[in-house]
């Protein structure tokens, strides 16, 4: 029986427009959703459980609004949902120590997470937690199998490595060939009634402070040409103007 944790995070829907108000991103009218790669982490966690029994606990760090994401994964078949209650900015050191503590006290054997969150794009959380727990980790995996121990496929220079992983370990998940399941009505009804286990956290002092959030500098308008023949002009510009070829 494996005790499995999966880390999920709510982020702005990837279709949403990001706006700045003052010197901060204004998310007040943005629709939030589960970070895309976390869906693959949840799927792999559920498959791990189905391969030999166990429990899956989804953990998020966030404000009450993040319960929606937890209920969403509950509807897919996750057993327990936990929210470490926090609203605001934590640097990677703070976030990872809070999560590592929760993982350690929960007695988990394996932790799944997305390869990066769609808001920061950093991908630091999985490997960072593993280091704090003294565990191994594999990142950006595109395939997984559970027969005879955990085996994953992870990209390496010039191809892929097929790696066997000793537990305990943290596994960060890319899309790869993973097809994710959809929730059904029964699951959704069950999830509605499910209780989120809310736990207070105190973030350690931060050594990184956000100074400002700004729009990316506007790119100067490009040159646009009509017709296939203009490809010749563009090739010449790539040499003379861009100095690339």
């Amino acid at each position, binding site marked *: 029986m494996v005790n499995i944790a999966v880390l999920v995070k709510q982020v702005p829907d990837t279709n949403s427009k990001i706006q700045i108000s003052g010197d901060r991103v204004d998310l007040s009218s943005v629709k939030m959703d589960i970070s895309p790669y976390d869906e693959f982490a949840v799927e792999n966690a559920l498959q791990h459980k189905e391969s030999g029994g166990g429990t899956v606990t989804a953990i998020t760090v966030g404000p009450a609004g993040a319960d929606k994401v937890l209920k969403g994964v509950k509807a897919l078949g996750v057993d327990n949902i936990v929210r470490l209650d926090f609203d605001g900015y934590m640097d990677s050191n703070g976030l990872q120590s809070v999560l590592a503590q929760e993982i350690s006290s929960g007695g988990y054997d394996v932790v799944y997470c997305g390869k990066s969150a769609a808001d920061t794009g950093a991908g630091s959380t999985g490997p960072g937690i593993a280091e704090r727990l003294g565990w191994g980790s594999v990142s950006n995996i595109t395939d997984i199998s559970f027969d005879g121990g955990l085996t994953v496929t992870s990209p390496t220079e010039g191809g892929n490595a097929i790696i066997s992983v000793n537990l305990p370990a943290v596994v960060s998940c890319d899309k790869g060939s993973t097809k994710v399941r959809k929730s059904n009505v029964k699951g959704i009804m069950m999830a509605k009634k499910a209780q989120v286990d809310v736990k207070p956290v105190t973030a350690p002092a931060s050594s990184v402070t956000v100074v400002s959030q700004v729009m990316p500098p506007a790119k100067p308008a490009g040159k646009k040409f009509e017709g296939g023949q*203009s490809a010749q002009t563009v090739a010449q510009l790539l040499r003379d103007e861009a100095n*690339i070829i």
Partner: protein
Amino acid sequence: MSDTIVIAELSKGKVSPTTNELVTAANELGSNPTVIVPCSDSSAANDASNISGVTKVIAAKSDVFANYDAAAWAEAIDSVAPAGIVITSASAQSKDLAARIAARRSISVVQDVIAINGTTLSTPIYSGKAIQNVAISGDAVISVRANVFTPSDNSGSTDVQVIDTTGNVSTAVKELVQRASQRLDVSEANIIISGGRGMGTPANFSHLEEIADKLGAAVGASRAAVDTWDEIPHSMQVGQTGKTVNPNLYIAVGISGAIQHLAGMRSSKYIVAINKDADAPIFQHADYGIVATWEEALPVLSSSLSSLLA
């Protein structure tokens, strides 16, 4: 002013030119770095000894560097790296390593740095839809995006110190599967040509491959192409749920420019778009746009490149 430590980026066992860009980033943070070359054969570090603006080169020698194991690499590097601001590249593997080293030292990591002003670092957030500026106090680990900082030149001369090191390996590589084609992966390439649904059939990607081979480029794809055609693997997908790339040149062919595709390639230095629809959103991000079908444009592009590169 903090001491800086650059972890050299390696490609096929050699110090890659990205390392010179990391040295520039260290210089912008105000110091000449110690460059650490993780290697199983210390002669690999000789290539780092002529990078300008460097204080010291350490060949961190260990068998663990033969295959990537995050835990062992972090331990082996941590034990030879002095305290300070540690700088890695922002390749997928190096970001993973950066996070590990930071956690090992109980300090923070800032990934994908695209600008440095004093101790203020800029990183893209929300897939590049906004930029976040953060101030770091004390030691940290930072990863730096390729093709952002001007590479430091190779007119220096620094002695190489060899230090034996080791770490505990927790994973075992059972098998390495080389890619069938000799072509680069999108995450490794400096030039990428990608096709979208507008290519019509997966067989038509051969026209992109022909140009890729001339340019030494990788071939990428939109999600619509990957989802529609089994022949186009997910490893080629660029975007929100694919790879984030930062090449010198990105050529988008038959790709509309959906926000999730832009998420993976908008920071490319130069973007060329070929699309038959003059109103396709990709043109708003293209340095050079060609309004035409690829059937008309690609043969012309191919022959023009042949004569330019001849």
